[in-house]
């Protein structure tokens, strides 16, 4: 007794002292900032719980890692194209001529302590940043989270994706190695392919004829100042809009367009999100410590003449290379000027793909004419055409990316690069249509299945023979909670032209909603439940309520 009492007193006293200290400190801060209300507001903010909501967080955390590792890199990287003779530790470059940018990259990789790890963390985090943005975007798209009131935030997110590509590409070009120089050469070619202004644009960017002496310092400013500032600003807007319009939640009992069901930020989400940041940080560090990325010393210092086999941009830029590889060499001359369709057409396609992505929420809102606020997400199969369009978009994107890797596929699968190019040329037209149709039909099939499930419950594969010879299968009805998810979704029908509906919109609604599975109506459900009760009564009369199969009974 005497030994335990003082220690327990100590335990009681300590948190009290800390809490008092916190209260005093908090009060001191609050009197000067009046931030207490905001902290309370954010701390009580409710977030729903689902793993698929966490990829936006991954993007945010990898951006933080990018800022931290990037700051480290700027302390050693010299963005200069002055020519120097290498005199560092990497043997096979001794005495080679190179730009100071490349030399400082070698220096920071091989001579600065932890330099290579930081370079690899920066680069892997960039890849993860873009992967997370895409996965997050897919989630938002396929669940219809972009609907009112979140169309603006979709556009902000879209801009973040585009800025991420700019950030990645400008950073990938900084070390001034052969591979990144080849990438810049492609950009130069793309710009010069634009009629009339192309050469002026190229001269403007490169400060003269490619490659010039200005591009690395300019990209440096873009990469470490302009783009990150823009990304930070947009992230702030993205998160503010997220807080203002609240987070969406998956359909479920008690979840409506007027509430959010989840946990408050403090303490549950603060802990989870904080922990998740360290998990992301840990995973990126682990990968960076064990897996090489962008070994610039192998590519060598930039020189406009060599182009290595297997030259590709980072993955998020692959699709922009694919179109250039797949398009035939179509060009024609008009008044002595070459019009390069082999550049203009792919660029038009890229623009179209991006525009579709950016404008889809507005397209869908126009088709449905839906002006309500949506906070409950769609399950992807409940909107077959949207899901089909999304998957078709991904298919085009994938084919373009595969087109950009045609040489590696040919090499590793022992195929002819010419055949592959033709395969991709054909499939970029055929595959999206096919995939759209298949996805749409699969969604409709799932809807049909779920409809049956909602009405009749789960088939148990146990069949009972009635005295009159009729076979009845025992169905296990769903509980109310599970059934709710299957019967809550919206239902749209095609519109007829006229009465303020344009012919175009009538066609669009027909395209979206011509094929549908009618949702379960309350009357249908009541009838199905009555029927099930009646059947259960008959079955129980025969089996006495014991649903074990005869063989199992024998076993007993």
């Amino acid at each position: 007794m005497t030994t335990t009492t003082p220690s327990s007193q100590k335990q009681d006293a300590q948190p009290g002292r800390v809490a008092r200290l916190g209260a005093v400190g908090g009060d001191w801060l609050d009197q000067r900032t009046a931030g207490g209300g905001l902290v309370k507001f954010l701390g009580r903010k409710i977030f729903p719980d689902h793993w698929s909501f966490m990829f936006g967080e991954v993007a945010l955390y990898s951006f933080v890692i990018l800022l931290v590792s990037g700051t480290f890199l700027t302390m050693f990287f010299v963005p200069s194209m002055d020519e120097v003779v290498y005199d560092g530790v990497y043997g096979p470059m001794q005495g080679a001529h190179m730009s100071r940018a490349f030399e400082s990259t070698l220096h920071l990789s091989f001579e600065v302590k932890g330099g290579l790890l930081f370079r690899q963390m920066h680069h892997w985090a960039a890849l993860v940043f873009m992967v997370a943005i895409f996965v997050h975007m897919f989630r938002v798209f396929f669940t219809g989270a972009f609907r009112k009131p979140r169309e603006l935030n979709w556009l902000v997110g879209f801009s973040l994706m585009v800025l991420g590509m700019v950030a990645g590409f400008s950073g990938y070009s900084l070390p001034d190695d052969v591979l990144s120089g080849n990438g810049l050469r492609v950009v130069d070619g793309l710009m010069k392919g634009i009629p009339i202004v192309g050469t002026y644009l190229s001269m403007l960017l490169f400060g003269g004829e490619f490659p010039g002496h200005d591009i690395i310092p300019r990209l440096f400013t873009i990469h470490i100042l302009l783009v990150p500032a823009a990304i930070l600003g947009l992230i702030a807007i993205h998160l503010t809009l997220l807080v203002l319009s609240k987070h969406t939640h998956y359909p479920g009992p008690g979840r409506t367009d007027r509430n959010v069901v989840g946990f408050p930020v403090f303490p549950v989400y603060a802990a989870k999100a904080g922990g998740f940041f360290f998990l992301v940080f840990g995973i990126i560090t682990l990968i960076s410590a064990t897996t090489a990325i962008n070994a610039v010393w192998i590519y060598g210092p930039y020189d406009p003449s060599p182009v290595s086999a297997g030259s590709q941009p980072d993955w998020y830029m692959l699709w922009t290379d694919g179109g250039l590889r797949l398009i035939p060499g179509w060009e024609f001359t008009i008044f002595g000027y070459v019009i390069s369709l082999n550049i203009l057409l792919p660029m038009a396609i890229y623009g179209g793909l991006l525009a579709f992505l950016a404008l889809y929420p507005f397209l869908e809102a126009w088709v449905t004419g839906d002006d309500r606020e949506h906070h409950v997400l769609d399950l992807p199969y409940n909107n077959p055409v949207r899901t089909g369009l999304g998957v078709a978009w991904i298919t085009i994107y994938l084919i373009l990316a595969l087109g950009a890797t045609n040489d590696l596929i040919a090499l590793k699968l022992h195929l002819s690069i010419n055949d592959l190019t033709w395969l991709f040329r054909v499939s970029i037209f055929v595959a999206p249509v096919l995939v759209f149709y298949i996805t749409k039909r699969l969604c409709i099939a799932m809807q049909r299945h779920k409809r049956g499930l909602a009405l009749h419950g789960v088939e148990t594969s146990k069949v009972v023979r009635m005295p009159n010879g009729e076979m009845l299968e025992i169905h296990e009805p769903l509980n109310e909670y599970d059934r709710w998810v299957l019967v809550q979704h919206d239902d749209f029908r095609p519109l007829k032209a006229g009465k303020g509906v344009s012919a175009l919109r009538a066609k669009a609604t027909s395209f979206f909603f011509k094929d549908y599975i009618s949702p379960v109506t309350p009357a249908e459900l009541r009838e199905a439940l009555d029927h099930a009760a009646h059947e259960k009564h008959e079955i129980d009369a025969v089996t006495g309520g014991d649903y074990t199969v005869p063989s199992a009974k024998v076993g007993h």
Partner: protein
Amino acid sequence: MKALAARRHHPMALLVILLLALVATGGLYAAFQPRTAQAETYTADDIQQGEALFLANCATCHGRSGEGLQDADGNTLGPSLIGVGAAAVDFQVGTGRMPMENSGAQAWRKPPQMNEEQTRQLSAYVASLGPGPSLPDEQYLDPANGDATKGGEIFRINCAMCHNAAGAGGALTRGKFAPTLDGVEPKHVYEAMETGPQNMPVFNDDNLTAQDKNDVIAYLHALEENGSPGGLSLGSLGPVTEGLYAWTIILSLLTACAVWLGAKAK
């Protein structure tokens, strides 16, 4: 004066000059032409043994006397081997590419079918068919004698466009390819540059000197010695494999964490 002038106009004078010119040209050519096979190191017995091996293993495609064969449609079954030299045989047979496993876009590397002695005998026989590049000098095969930096420059400008900057290999048209250079013996690297096997261009001594070739060998050696300082190289295939890694392994790890955190505490 007159007699001198008359002798100068002797009708045979022109012929003599022509003859002298021919001898000089031929002699100079003989002196400066690419070094022929070191036929002197091969014995007549080597050549004879080589011929027997040739008839048994190679003649089906290359012809009974190495003159090359065509099928009825005029497609080449096997090219003529007259003048390809010992270096070509040592490369093709020494790396197992010949005898060819099956016809296709290109001969594949496989464990050599001929042992060293048999390869030497075949080389002797083919070298005896006509003068061609001989086996490389040992001193040019030692990476220590080369300048890796210079070799790196030569490699990036001349070789990397097909073989990849890391020597990981690359695709060519219609199923042809430039093979990986990882683990290829210096001798075979040299011979490949010298003879241009399969779809490879010839880099003879006028193009890349013996010392240049030695530099390339030194660079490839240095690449192998250095390994991958950053960790797993993912096949040194560049951004595509890195992107694939990000989309598969890293995304799986992140998703697993997300699912774990998203799971409700029971």
